[in-house]
Every structure is written in structure tokens, then in C-alpha cells.
């Protein structure tokens, strides 16, 4: 039996309101270390909003969130980078910088942490090998397919060795083969010890993977 105190991510009665509209309603949830968790539900259920709250892309309206014992309600904008370095974030629209090469996009994470050039070279090469993109280091994102861009985004998410991976519809804009490749990468990352949260409405994706499933509907946790 896992205890609440051991949870890596804890949500207590979390609300997110946009005016009179409740995007999230009284969400309480524990996510434990090395868990693979799916946040499932139709579009507009509040999956992305929940992930945004976790990476401080949005602020809480009510309730509390703890990530690795950091209380997000008390994290000042100055300390936001400290929290985000615990996370690796993957977006449906990849969010790669189009004017930077594949290598530069990934290296940025480590540059922001003041790592040495030698370390960055070694680490970026290693993650590019894991995602199978080692031969595209000098390519620019617009020249890559959707699947390849998402592989680069996965590489960027894991290069800083985060404790938690947050993936918002990571296969949403990919074909079946690319989606499978990305899912396998996430399983691989999970196997290396990371906690993975995947927000998706893709039932096939959920059924093809062993992991806890949390259902959201109209901002409420239903299962």
C-alpha cells in the first residue's frame, strides 16, 4: 500500500476557473515515483489544463499541488525554473525552435543550466541515439516529419534527466507508426526510472500500454 506522503506529485482539491467556467473541479490525486499514468478524457475535459498547472503554465484558482515536495502555490516566478528543471515536457505541437538545429534545440536545456560544452555534446549525442535521430543533428525542425519532430521533442524532454515527464497529446498529430514509436520511447524512458504522465484522448494508445488510467470529464475526475 502506497502512502500519500510518498507521492511525487500530489493534488489537493484543485480548482481552475476561467471566470465563471470551471476548467477543473475539485481534483485530488497522487502520482507515485516511476508511475506511468494516463490522463484520459475527451477534448475539453481539462487534461491539458491539469498539465499546465503542473508546469506553472497556469496558476491555481484553489487547492494545492506538491511536486517533489515543492508547493506550487508558493513557487515565485523566480523559482519557476527550479521546478521546471524537475520536469520534461512534451507538447502535441512539439514546440521546437524553428531557427535552431535539432542539436541546438536539445542543447538549450543544458545550456540554460550552465553545463559545459563537452558535457552537452556527450549528453545530446546520447539522447539523440536513444530516439534514433543521431543522423539529423544539423537539420532544422521545419525540414523534419511530424514523427521526427516529436522524437526531437522527446529527446529535449529527457536530456536534463528530469524526474517527471509530462506529455500533452504526444501522438495527437502523428500517424500510427510514428505514434507507436513515440509511445515506445515513453515506455523506454519510464523503464529508466522516470515518472510519466500522458494526457491523451487516444483509447488505443491507452489500451496498448500498461499504466494507471485517470478519467477526466468536464473538469471532474470520474475514475
Amino acid at each position, binding site marked *: 500500500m502506497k502512502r500519500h506522503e510518498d507521492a511525487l506529485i500530489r493534488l489537493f482539491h484543485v480548482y481552475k476557473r476561467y471566470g465563471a467556467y470551471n476548467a477543473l473541479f475539485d481534483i485530488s490525486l497522487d502520482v507515485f515515483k516511476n508511475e506511468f499514468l494516463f490522463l484520459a478524457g475527451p477534448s475539453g475535459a481539462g487534461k491539458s489544463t491539469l498539465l499546465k498547472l503542473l508546469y506553472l503554465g497556469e496558476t491555481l484558482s484553489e487547492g494545492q499541488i506538491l511536486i517533489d515536495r515543492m508547493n506550487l502555490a508558493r513557487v515565485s516566478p*523566480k523559482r519557476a*525554473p527550479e521546478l*521546471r528543471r524537475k520536469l520534461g515536457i512534451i507538447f502535441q505541437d512539439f*514546440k*521546437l*525552435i524553428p531557427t535552431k538545429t535539432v542539436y541546438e534545440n536539445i542543447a538549450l536545456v543544458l*545550456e*540554460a543550466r550552465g553545463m559545459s560544452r563537452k558535457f552537452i555534446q556527450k549528453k545530446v549525442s546520447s539522447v539523440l541515439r536513444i530516439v534514433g535521430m543521431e543522423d539529423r543533428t544539423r537539420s532544422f525542425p521545419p525540414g523534419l516529419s511530424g514523427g521526427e519532430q516529436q522524437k526531437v521533442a522527446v529527446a*529535449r524532454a529527457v536530456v*536534463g534527466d528530469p524526474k517527471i515527464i509530462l506529455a500533452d497529446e504526444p501522438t495527437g498529430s502523428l500517424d500510427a507508426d510514428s505514434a507507436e514509436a513515440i509511445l515506445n520511447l515513453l515506455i523506454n524512458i519510464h523503464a529508466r526510472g522516470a515518472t510519466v504522465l500522458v494526457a491523451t484522448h487516444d483509447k488505443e494508445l491507452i489500451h496498448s500500454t500498461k499504466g494507471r488510467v485517470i478519467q477526466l470529464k468536464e473538469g471532474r475526475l470520474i475514475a
Partner: protein
Amino acid sequence: MKLFFFKKALQDILNNRFLNTVTVTTIALSVLIVSSFALFFYNANELLDTWKKGIRALVYLDPAADDANRLDLKYNIQKLAGVSEARFISRKEAMAQMKVQMGRQASLLEGLETNPLPDVFEVRLKPESQTMAEIERLSRAIEALPHIDKVEYGQQWIGKFTSIINVFKFVGYAMGGLFLVATLFIVANTVRLVLYSRQEEIVIMRLVGATDRFIKTPFYIQGMALGGLGGIIGMAGLFIAFHFISEKFHSSLSAELLDMHFLGLEMIAGFIAGSMFIGWVGCYVSLKQFLKA
């Protein structure tokens, strides 16, 4: 890490070449205009200082004054605060000097039956008293003494010239201020445009854990580099213009009257540092607004 920031700043400058060229040109023109005023004041002040060093008062004595009166007067004048020396020039000595100055035309003076020149005290001032206000005060004090016919200080026009320079100074400060504000706006807008063009990149950088310092530093380097470059170009432009104008002067008679000098190294460094500071402030204003969120 420092090298990384410099590389990023240089990359940004090269990626937005047109925008940055316009900014550097504007800064250079502003520096050129403001430093032109500074150069004018610098030379005008030097000229005034030279003229002021020659400030003296001529005290003409009453022809009835005898030797005892002259000794009293000398004592009383030298006692006045601000006076460094009161030299007596007798009417005889004055005539001899005049003859020397007139050279061959001195024969004209030989027809004079009596010496029309009065006895005179040439009063020189201490350096700290070489101002128009001080010489006016001293003149009034000397005029009040007995056996004085009149007091003259031939450089009255220096006072008028100083007033004109002061008007120019005021205009210069006002224009300098206006150009400073205009330059600041232009740098701030350039940085803002670059920030808007990189908005998405900045959002992504924040999401991957970049601190604001990491995001801001290259912009500050960029702003200071643009300011510094504008400053150097502006000063170079001023130097070329100065060289051209002073060459023209040297070939004319005015050269002896106006011995022009270029700004000192400290002032040049000050202008370049000032334009770098404006670049920094421009960045600060834009970044503060942009990264507020």
C-alpha cells in the same frame, strides 16, 4: 558561459542586421550631434579661459595726485581681496612704451608739447578672482578710493561673450536631453521588435527551465554593443568633421585666434560609455515590460 552569451548576442545582431544597422546609425547621429555641442563648448571655454587670464584693470590717477598719494593708493589697492598685483606705470613710462609700440610712426608723438598720458596702476587679479563679476566688484571698490580719475577693464565684451556661450550651453543641454530620450526609445523599440520576433523561442526557453537571467543577458550585451558601436562611429564622425574644419581654419588668419582642440580621451571614453549605458537602459525598459508575464 560568458562566451556563450556573447556568441548569442552576436548571432542576434547578425540575424537582425537591418534593424540593428538603423539603431546603430541613429545612436551614432545622436552622439555626433551632442558631441558637436560638447566640442564647441570645450573650445569656447578654453578660449574664454585664455582671455580671462588676461583680465586686468587700468586705474587712471587724478593728475593732481602726488607721490605720497600714489604710495597710499598702491597700498590700498593691494589690500583689496582678489588683487594679486598693482603695478605703477608712470606717464613717462607709458609714453616710452607707446613710442616702442608705434615704431617708425613714433615721430608723430614728438610734436606734443606735454605728455597727455596719465599715471596708471595696472591691477592684476588672483586666478580665483578672474571672473567678470569679481572684476566689476573690484573696479567699483577702486573707483571709490581718493585720487582716482577712472577705472577701465577693456575686456567687458568677454562678459557678453560668456552670456552668449551660456545660452548655447542651455540649448546644448536641452538638445542633448532630447536626443538621449529619442535614442533610448529607438534602442528600446529595437529590442522590443527582436523580443516579439523571438516570443515563441522565449516561451520555450522558459518551459525548459531557463532563468530570466539566461534569457536577458544576451539582450543586455546586444544593447550595450549597439550603444558602444554607435558611440564609436559618432565619435569617429566628429573627429573626421573636426579634422576637416580645423584644416580649413589653419589655412586662414583665424588660426592664431582660434587654436582648436579635439575632445580629451576622458570625454571620448565618456561619450562611448554613455551610449553603451543608453543601450543598456533601452534593453532594461523593454525586457522589464516583456518578461513581466
